[in-house]
């Protein structure tokens, strides 16, 4: 669906996006993570033809961007940073106006499509109010509705849950999963790791313009070969599994063990009471902190092993 090759954007001396090879498959729910200023928004803007790449290629639905922007963008619904609308007009009028402005918005079905999009995002009752009276969350929903008016094949959403309350976040997550199951590819960027963890099937992590991780979520969250045991008899557990204990924090012990079930059977066999036992998985938060903490001494492992080799940096090769 989206393929970029060595995509690079420089603003003066600053390399905002550095040789990114992004691959988003058909039907993916792709989550792009990264700290502020890591280049997420610039990358999204390049995909949409708003910002021109300094180097590299973008292919969306098999067509080169921004050369074929006219054809590709009709199939894309997008939210870029905050939503925007004309405040003196109603939400409905805004969507109709945007639909009428470009190609592919059939006039005969406009009313119905706008109504359906508003209903999908839960704004059916507020469509006639002027946008200036909308709350932050309502504006966000309106922005999503604008992306849905023409039933896109690809959704590119920059921080879709911005400004939403917990219920709103859940609503949007359910909506995106529903759309994805109906065949829409979803590409989103977010700060909310828990949100990406629940929603996405594939994850990319940007750090200072480089794509340092790109992997399926399940692979990233594969068991680490350790088991977390919580037990009121923590001392006995530690004694029993001496030599395998990695860390101990009160009643919570992390041990090296491949099989949580077998370990549980053994502990129970030894009459050790177990409150909780589970295989340890890396959380997305941990992963992000590790991979984007490059340069910090406190990081375990070398983040460079995840990243693009330095020699692919166009700035280096030019020097």
């Amino acid at each position, binding site marked *: 669906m989206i393929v970029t090759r060595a995509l690079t954007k420089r603003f003066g001396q600053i390399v905002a996006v550095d040789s990114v090879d992004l691959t988003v498959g058909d039907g993916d729910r792709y989550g792009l993570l990264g700290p502020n200023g890591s280049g997420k928004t610039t990358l999204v803007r390049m995909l949409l033809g708003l910002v*021109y790449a300094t180097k590299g290629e973008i292919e969306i639905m098999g067509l080169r961007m921004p050369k074929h*922007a006219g054809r590709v963008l009709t199939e894309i619904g997008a939210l870029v940073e905050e939503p925007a609308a004309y405040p003196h007009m109603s939400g409905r009028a805004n969507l109709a106006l945007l639909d009428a*402005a470009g190609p592919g918005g059939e006039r005969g079905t406009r009313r119905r499509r706008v109504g359906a999009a508003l209903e999908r995002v839960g704004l059916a009752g507020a469509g006639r109010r002027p946008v200036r009276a909308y709350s932050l969350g309502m504006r966000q929903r309106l922005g999503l509705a604008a992306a849905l008016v023409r039933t896109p094949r690809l959704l590119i959403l920059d921080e879709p849950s911005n400004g939403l309350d917990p219920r709103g976040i859940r609503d949007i997550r359910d909506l995106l999963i529903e759309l994805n199951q109906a065949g829409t590819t979803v590409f989103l960027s977010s700060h909310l790791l828990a949100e990406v963890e629940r929603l996405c099937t594939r994850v990319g992590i940007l750090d200072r313009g480089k794509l340092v991780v790109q992997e399926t979520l399940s692979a990233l969250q594969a068991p680490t070969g350790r088991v977390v045991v919580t037990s009121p008899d923590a001392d006995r557990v530690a004694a029993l599994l001496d030599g395998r204990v990695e860390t101990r924090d009160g009643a919570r012990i992390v041990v090296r063990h491949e099989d949580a079930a077998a370990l549980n059977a053994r502990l129970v066999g030894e009459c050790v009471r177990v409150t909780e036992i589970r295989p340890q998985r890396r959380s997305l938060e941990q992963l992000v902190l590790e991979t984007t903490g490059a340069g910090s001494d406190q990081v375990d492992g070398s983040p460079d092993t995840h990243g693009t080799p330095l020699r692919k940096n166009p700035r280096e090769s030019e020097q």
Partner: protein
Amino acid sequence: MIAVELRKLVRRPRTWISIGLICALPVAVAIFVSVSHLAPPPGQGTAFLSAILQDGSLYPAAALALVLPVFLPVAVAVVAGDAVAGEATAGTLRYLLIRPIGRTRFLVAKLVTIIMFVLIAVVTVAITSYLTGVLLLGPAVPAAVGQPGAGQQLQTGGVQAGSAATSLSGPPLTALQLIERVGGTIAFITVSMLGVAAIVLFLSTVTDSALGSALGGLAVLIGSEVLATLDAAASIRPYVPTRYWLAWIDFFRQPIFWRDIQRGFGIQVVYVAVFLAAAWANFGTKDITT
């Protein structure tokens, strides 16, 4: 896209407020003149203003001469400055471009909208000031258009407005001639304002501040006015944008005095072409980061 832009123009309260204000100045002037019966002597002050005491139906020409130097360019600069920079600041620019609307098409739609705004403003000023003139100052001859007397009056107005620099002779204007000349005036003013619009539109693609681009455009016009009256700058005087702005007055001479009209038209066409090309080149390759 053009239809959408026009709809936006028409639905925007600012459009009608600014046009209302532009129309209000001539009305206020007409009230003062009709009450005091004091007008600048022929050849001084605003063109045509001395003539209107004799014929209220000439007031549209005086009204246009009143609003042209400042009011109209300010309004045009505001609309043109908002065209790209305003959408950029509001964030709507990026959503229009990914809708998708080609950048060239976007600029063309904005330009058409600005031309429509100028036309609406000029025609509204002409109509309201005609009504004001006839009601407050009274026509010299009722139903001015189409009667030989009215044509004669109009010629007199032309003589006085033209700083008495040219002596005019010729047959009175027929109704058709009058309509042609009013049409020519509207076209000339529109092209002059298009020159302003092109400069401001270019600035609007450079900066993301609608106010900045509008004020930048006005600064150019003020600079141009200064140079147009500065003898030391005589060598460039014919090429500054405001030099021939009032040349449309020559449409009301008999016969029409074409030289300044043609020069004014030519200069505006050059300004429009150069700045629109610059706007297009800049906007077409610009990174949209707002």
